[in-house]
C-alpha cells in the first residue's frame, strides 16, 4: 500500500482507503495481535465483561459501516440490536433452539427489519433520514413494550444458554467467550471485507459525492439500501449474541438511548476507521462497568469524555492515530 502523504481529511471523514489488493500488512498484523490478545483476555479480566465489550464492538462496527462508509447517520440502530436480541432470546427460551440457531434467527429478523425500514428511510437525506430511522426505532420500542411475548418492562428473562450445535455446553463462561469471540471477530472481518470490496469503494464514492456517483451510472439507492441492510444485520448479530451472553433481552437494548450510545462509541473511537468503533465501544463499556461504584458520576464522566473527544480529536481516537501514522486504520 502507498504511504504517501494524503491531505488531512475533512473533519469527521475517513482517510481515503486505497483500492484493495488483499489486506495490507499493517492491518494483518493488527488483526493478528488483536486475536492473540482476545484469546488470552478471558484469563485476565472477567469473561462476561469481555463478552459484553465484544458484542458492543461488533454493534459499533456495524453502525460504522453505515455512518463512516455509507455516510448515513441512522438514529435508530437500537431497533435492530434490541429487536434481534428479543427474537434470539425468544427462540432460545420458548422454541428451545440451540444458541447458534437462535442467534441466526435474531440476525435474520434484524435483516428483514433493516430491509423494511431501510427501503423507506433512504428516500430522505440528512436530518430527515435520521429522524425517520428514529421514528421507526421508537415503533420497534413500542412493540417491545407491548407485545405479549416480550414480557413488557421485565423483558425476557432466564434464557437458557444451551449447547452450541447441540454438542458443546455454553454454561461455562470460557466456552461461551470463544463462541462470542468467533462471532465478533468473524463479523468484524466480514465488515472489513465489505469496506474493501468494489462495493465498499462505490459506497465511499456515494458518501463523498452522491450526484457524481449517480452521473457515473450507479444506482445509488440500491447501494444505500444494501449497506443499510448489511449494517442492520450485523447490529442484529451483535444484539442476538448479547442476549445469549446475558441470558436476557430487555427494553434497554431497544431504547433510543442505545441508538445514541452507539453513535457515541463510533465517534469516540473514530468514524470511518475499521478499528475505531470497537475501541470506542470498549472504552464506553469499560467506563460503565468499572465506574458503576461511582453512581451518578458515570454519566457525567461519560459526557465530559465525549465533549473532550469531539473538541480535541474530532476524528476519534483511532482516527487521530491513523493521521499520525499517515495510514488508514
Amino acid at each position, binding site marked *: 500500500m502507498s504511504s504517501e502523504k494524503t491531505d488531512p481529511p475533512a473533519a469527521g471523514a475517513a482517510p481515503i482507503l486505497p483500492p484493495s489488493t488483499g489486506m495490507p500488512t499493517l492491518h494483518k498484523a493488527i488483526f493478528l495481535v488483536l486475536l492473540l490478545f482476545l484469546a488470552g483476555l478471558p484469563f485476565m479480566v*472477567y469473561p*462476561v*465483561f469481555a463478552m*459484553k465489550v465484544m458484542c458492543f464492538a461488533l454493534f459499533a462496527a456495524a453502525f460504522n459501516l453505515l455512518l463512516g462508509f455509507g455516510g448515513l447517520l441512522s438514529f435508530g440502530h437500537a431497533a435492530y440490536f434490541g429487536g434481534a436480541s428479543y427474537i434470539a432470546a425468544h427462540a432460545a427460551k420458548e422454541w428451545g433452539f440451540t444458541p447458534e440457531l437462535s442467534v441466526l434467527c435474531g440476525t435474520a429478523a434484524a435483516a428483514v427489519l433493516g430491509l423494511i425500514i431501510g427501503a423507506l428511510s433512504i428516500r430522505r437525506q440528512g436530518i430527515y433520514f435520521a429522524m425517520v430511522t428514529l421514528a421507526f426505532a421508537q415503533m420497534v420500542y413500542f412493540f417491545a*413494550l*407491548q407485545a405479549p411475548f416480550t*414480557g*413488557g*418492562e*421485565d*423483558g425476557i*428473562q*432466564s434464557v437458557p444458554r444451551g449447547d452450541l450445535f447441540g454438542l458443546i455446553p455454553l454454561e461455562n463462561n470460557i466456552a461461551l467467550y470463544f463462541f462470542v469471540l468467533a462471532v465478533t471477530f468473524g463479523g468484524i472481518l466480514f465488515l472489513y471485507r465489505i469496506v474493501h470490496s468494489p462495493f465498499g469503494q462505490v459506497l465511499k464514492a456515494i458518501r463523498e459525492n452522491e450526484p457524481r456517483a449517480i452521473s457515473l451510472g450507479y444506482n445509488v439507492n440500491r447501494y444505500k439500501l444494501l449497506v443499510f441492510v448489511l449494517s442492520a444485520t450485523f447490529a442484529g448479530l451483535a444484539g442476538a449474541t*448479547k442476549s445469549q451472553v*446475558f*441470558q*436476557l433481552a*430487555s*427494553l*434497554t*437494548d431497544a431504547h433510543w438511548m442505545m441508538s445514541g450510545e452507539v453513535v457515541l462509541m463510533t465517534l469516540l473511537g473514530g468514524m470511518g476507521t475499521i478499528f475505531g468503533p470497537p475501541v470506542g465501544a470498549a472504552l464506553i463499556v469499560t467506563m*460503565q*462497568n468499572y465506574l*458503576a*461504584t*461511582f*453512581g*451518578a*458520576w*458515570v*454519566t457525567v464522566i461519560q459526557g465530559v469524555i465525549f465533549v473532550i473527544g469531539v473538541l480535541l480529536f474530532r476524528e476519534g481516537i483511532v482516527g487521530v492515530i491513523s493521521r499520525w501514522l499517515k495510514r488508514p486504520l
Partner: protein
Amino acid sequence: MIRKLALGTALGALAAGAAFAAGIDVKLGVLNDRSGVYADLSGEGSVVAARMAVEDFKAKDKGLNVEIISADHQNKPDIGSGIARKWYDAEGVNAILDVPTSSVALAVADITADANGVLLDSGAGSTALTREQCRPTTIHWTYDTAALANGTGKALTEAGGKKWFFLTADYAFGHSLEENTAKVVEANGGEVVGTVDVPFPAQDFSSFLLQAQGSGADVIGLANAGGDTVNAIKQASEFGITQAGQKLAALLFFITDVHALGVQTAQGLSLTSAFYWDQNDQTREWSKRFMDKHGAEPTMVQAGVYSATMAYLAAVEALGSADDGKAVVAKMKEMDIDDPLFGKVKVRGDGRAVHDMYLYEVKTPGDSTGEWDLYKQISSISGDDAFLPMLDECDFTKK
C-alpha cells in the same frame, strides 16, 4: 537475643491476632439505582440502612467480619447482571441487597441461584420474583405490586369506596397492577365503573382525569408508577379532585415522592406502605438515627434493606457460615423473625417475606406538623391478606 525475643513475641501476637480475626467473613453488595429515578427511594439510603444493620447486629462482637460494597445498576438489566456476576464470581460477595427495577431484579435472581448466593430484594415490585421465577436463593422482603394493590383495593373498598375508575399506564406493569386491584375491589363488593389506558410515559393527564371525574367513581386508582403518578397527582390537585370528594389512590408510591410533591398537592392521596417512620417508638428511634446519617426519612425500601440484613446476619451466625446461599435462605425460612421495624415477619417457602401492610392517607396541610409529617394511618392489613398465596411449585422448603 532480645531482638529474637521481641521478634518472637511480635510474631506470636500476630498469629494470635490472626486467629482472633478469623471469624466468619460476610460480604454484602448493595446493588441499586444511584443516579436515576429510584435513587431517592433506594440509592445511598439503602447502603446507610445496611451499615446500620451491621452495627446494630453487633456483628463484630459475634465474630462476623462484614464488608459492604455498593454499585449503580442504572436500571439496566445487562449492567446489573454484569455487576452481580462479577460480585459472585470474582469478588466473593455472599448476598446482594435491594435491587429495585423488576427487570434487573429478575436477572439478578437467576444469577444468584446459579452462584448459590442470596438475593435479599427490597426495592423491586414484581410478584414474579416469588412466582413465575421463584428461586431457592431469593427472598423478597418489603412489598410487591400485588400486596400494594391488595392493601389499597381492599381497605378502600371496605371503607366505602365502592366505585372505582382506573387510570392505567398502557404497558404490562400498568395492566397487571390494574387487574390485581380490580380483582380485589370486586371480591370486596366494589365495582369498576371504567378504565382508561394512558400512553406511557405521559405528561398530560387532563383529559383522562376529566373522564375519571365525570364517571361518578368514588376512587380513582392510579395504576402507574414514578413520574407518571407524580404528574397525575399534580394535575388531579389542579382539578381539585380530592377536595371534591373523590379519593385518589396511588398503587405504587413512596414517601420520598410524597415529600417531593408536598402535602398541599398530595393531600388526601391513599397509598399502601410496609413501613412509615412515625409508626411506633421503635420505628421513630431507628428513623431518627437514619435521618442523622442520611438527611431524609427512610422509605420502606430502605427500612426493608435494614431488616433483611438483620435477619440474614442472624441466619449466618446460626449456621456459622455464609458460603452456602441456599442453606442461609432455608435457615431464614425457619426462623421466627421479630423485627424492630416490620414487627413479626415470616419468610415463606417461596421466599416471600410476609408482614403487615398499612393503608395511609396523606395529611392535609392543616394536620401536618412538619416537613416529614405526611401520613395518617387508616387501617392495617395482615400479611396473609396482603400477599398472594404461595404457589406449591415454589415452596422450596418441601423440596
